[in-house]
């Protein structure tokens, strides 16, 4: 009996103590916080924001070849592409490309592969969920896919976050400071949230984009005074915006991260137009 009563006493004492210690918000806090949420654009649901995974693009290309060859057969039952030569000669352009977009990885890991281009001995990976492939420096790391057991939590696709150190991304949690560069897909371009100190129209992966650098003024809820955000806002065909960012709050050298981001944008390939 005593053993039963003691835990109950402790339970009551703990609950009483916490209720007394917990802060209570004033009404203006509630309004202020809800106002801040209203200024943020919502993300698109996963199912709507998928724009042709890379595997689908490759499949469509193969299908197009098959259909093309089938039509060719119909038009030329002899099977010779050139009636004058008598030899079949399929067009080289109808063979699916061997570029990274044609060989998507189905591994949950970023599956880095050695990449050419601006990064000597660099790596590349694909984000099948968001539909892009990108290269990054040889000594950097990309996140691995996270599929939470809890169905209500967001999965995190591989190849979305990059940094100089290995990183662990938790569902529905803040990003660790080791993430230097992140990709995200938004329904629309978010407001700058500070003073725009650089804005250029550029082309990334064949799509129109804005290169933007913002200095925090302390007025907005997201960028503290003195902090910097450097980002590419890439306009996608469906109207979504792929945002690739780095900011000065991340661990490491902000200037160096900006340079890496610029180079990564040179290597970006989108799954479909």
């Amino acid at each position, binding site marked *: 009996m005593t053993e039963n009563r003691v835990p109950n006493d402790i339970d009551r004492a703990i609950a009483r103590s916490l209720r007394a*210690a917990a802060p209570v918000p004033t009404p203006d806090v509630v309004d202020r916080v809800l106002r801040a949420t209203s200024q943020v*654009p919502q993300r698109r649901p996963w199912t709507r924001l998928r724009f042709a995974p890379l595997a689908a693009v490759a499949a469509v290309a193969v299908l197009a070849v098959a259909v093309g060859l089938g039509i060719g057969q119909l038009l030329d039952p002899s099977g010779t592409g050139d009636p004058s030569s008598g030899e079949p000669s399929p067009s080289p352009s109808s063979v699916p490309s061997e570029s990274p977009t044609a060989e998507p990885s189905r591994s949950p890991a970023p599956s880095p592969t050695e990449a050419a281009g601006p990064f000597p001995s660099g790596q590349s990976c694909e984000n099948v969920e968001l539909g892009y492939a990108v290269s990054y420096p040889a000594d950097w790391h990309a996140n691995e896919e996270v599929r939470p057991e809890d169905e209500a939590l967001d999965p995190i696709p591989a190849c979305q976050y990059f940094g100089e150190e290995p990183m662990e991304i938790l569902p529905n949690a803040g990003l660790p400071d080791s993430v230097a560069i992140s990709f995200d897909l938004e329904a629309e371009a978010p407001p700058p949230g500070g003073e725009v100190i650089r804005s250029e129209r550029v082309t990334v992966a064949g799509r129109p984009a804005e290169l933007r650098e913002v200095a925090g003024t302390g007025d907005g809820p997201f960028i503290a005074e003195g902090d910097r955000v450097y980002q590419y806002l890439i306009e996608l065909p469906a109207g979504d915006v792929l945002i690739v960012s780095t900011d000065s709050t991340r661990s490491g050298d902000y200037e160096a991260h900006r340079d890496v981001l610029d180079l990564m944008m040179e290597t970006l390939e989108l799954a479909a137009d």
Partner: protein
Amino acid sequence: MEMTASTHGVWNLREELVQRAMDGDHAAFEALVRPEFDRLYGLAGLLIGDRSRAEDAVQEGLVRAWRDLPRLRDRGRFGPWLRKLVVNAARDEGRRLGRRRRETELTGAHERSGPARELDAVLDRDELAGAFRRLQEDERAAIALRYYCDLSTAEAASALGVGEVAYRSRLHRAVKTLGAALAAEARAVSGPEGGLA
């Protein structure tokens, strides 16, 4: 039967609000969040130990909730999901605050802000609250979710992103620590009598 029907009706209304909020209706989001706000704010304050940071953490959690709501796959899980976002934001904020305090302590310029001192004063009022403040971060969260938010083991474990066994183990450890603090307080109160006996 009436009770079941009524509960069912409330459940449907809530799910309808979640769906409207998922479709971009901010008024529906407000209707869902306002009744929960005090509890979320208090929870964040307990986890961080600083009133002004509690507001930052709740704001961060709610901004994430509004932004990512269209990607929520189970409308019925809105409440636990929201709590999890706020718990995660509070833990992030607590770690940032801890880092900043350590840095300022190193430079000798550390001084607790007004609201933080206020909360410290409340927490230091008795041994039990002081012991709560000295718990590990994950133990504090385990205690606050059970005794402040009145969550079941399954709900609290889900909010912390751990299994039920791991949660029970943390809770047991934390309750044991607090129990020892409570016993120490009891001894202190009855000290002179005990000494005479």
